[in-house]
């Protein structure tokens, strides 16, 4: 295990972080939409939201990735494997985040929304100015958890040929025949990234604490 090999792993972990961050952000946006659908008064919309969440939470991510990776070309979308991987991860995390956000949205005090009504805020304004920020703040710990889950889950995109940290460790161990130190080093890098993410979210939670009654 040379410094050169370790450097290659560190470079590859850039892709792990890249894929994870994009998926988390896309998943958060889509998850907000889905949670709004689940909470909407339209019954068919709520049902569609629930089915989406149930399916993506109920089947293994690996199977979802394999499905999407092979489905997109069938639909005429010849996208690189990186894009397919991001689509798969985003859809999956959107389902989990929608479920978290649903809880957050449900806990927005009715009084605030009544006040917003009185002030003449449009439903759109109410959503982006009052409901979404509060729900996001309430679900920040869950988002921290989900981010770490996705960082770990992103290792599965190695199976559809994206050369991120796990795939790089695999490829290097196939050519150098030292899998033990390589995978141990990869595990160490994952631990460090997850530690940083956990710390970052803890900081964010503390600075967002105002406005939440303990």
């Amino acid at each position, binding site marked *: 295990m040379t410094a050169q090999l370790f450097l290659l792993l560190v470079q590859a972990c850039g892709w792990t972080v890249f894929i994870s961050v994009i998926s988390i952000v896309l998943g958060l946006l889509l998850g907000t939409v889905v949670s709004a659908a689940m909470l909407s008064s339209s019954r068919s919309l709520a049902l569609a939201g629930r089915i989406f969440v149930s*399916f993506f939470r*109920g089947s293994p991510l*690996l199977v979802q990735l394999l499905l999407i990776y092979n489905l997109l070309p069938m639909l005429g979308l010849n996208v690189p494997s990186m894009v397919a991987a991001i689509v798969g991860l985003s859809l999956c995390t959107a389902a989990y985040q929608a479920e978290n956000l649903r809880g957050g949205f449900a806990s927005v005090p009715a009084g605030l929304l009544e006040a917003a009504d009185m002030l003449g805020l449009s439903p759109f304004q109410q959503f982006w100015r009052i409901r979404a920020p509060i729900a996001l703040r309430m679900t920040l710990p869950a988002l921290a958890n989900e981010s770490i889950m996705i960082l770990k889950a992103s*290792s599965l995109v190695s199976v559809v040929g994206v050369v991120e940290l796990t795939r790089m460790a695999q490829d290097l161990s196939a050519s150098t025949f030292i899998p*033990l130190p390589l995978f*141990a080093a990869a595990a160490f890098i994952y631990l460090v990234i997850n530690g940083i993410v956990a710390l970052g979210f803890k900081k964010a939670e503390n600075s967002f604490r105002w406005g939440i009654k303990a």
Partner: protein
Amino acid sequence: MTFDINLIYSLGPTLLRATGVTLMVWLGATLVAIVLGFFVAFGRRYGPRALDAALRVYVEVIRGTPFLIQLFLLYYGGPFIGLVLDPVPAGLIGLAIYGGAYFSEIFRAGFESVPTGHIEAGVCLGLDQGQIVRRILIPEMTTLVMPPIVNMMIVLLKETAVLSVVTVPELTFQISAIGSEKYAFVEAMFLLACFYWGLVELCGTLGRAAEARFSRLRLTR
């Protein structure tokens, strides 16, 4: 599309066996993981400080790294330290070690949420340490930890799909093979996802029923 009975004859046994492997590995690993997790949580709470520190490292490392990497370490790295495992035992052991860390955190929270007053009451009544654990902590804890345990069982069921990467002949592995062979990979994957989906929903429903039954039992006693 014609109904081809020969397809059922030729694929049926493979699919049944693959389902069997998935269920066997899942339930076997879950059982080992729950026992392991319980003892880890117990050791961390009642053992010496050094044991707590060592077990903490185990829990944090497992929870901080992807299951796939752990599996690779065990399956491809193992032989370099004399640990040669066939795919199925490697999958089972890997899944059990992985689940054990998460279950231990569930049990730890369970131990912590038993009110101190109940334990003090036990002390006042002259129960010894073992009796307090057996008669107060564990019965109270089991009702509290049931929902997260069911949740974790579902997570482990979904993780069994990852075992296909190290050639464990479970459902995902066999169905990908059949799907590629028959040029119907997307259809096969879709059916597979739906199969897991159904199994997860079934598991969740059974789990909720078990929770309801458990808590009723405890309340009436």
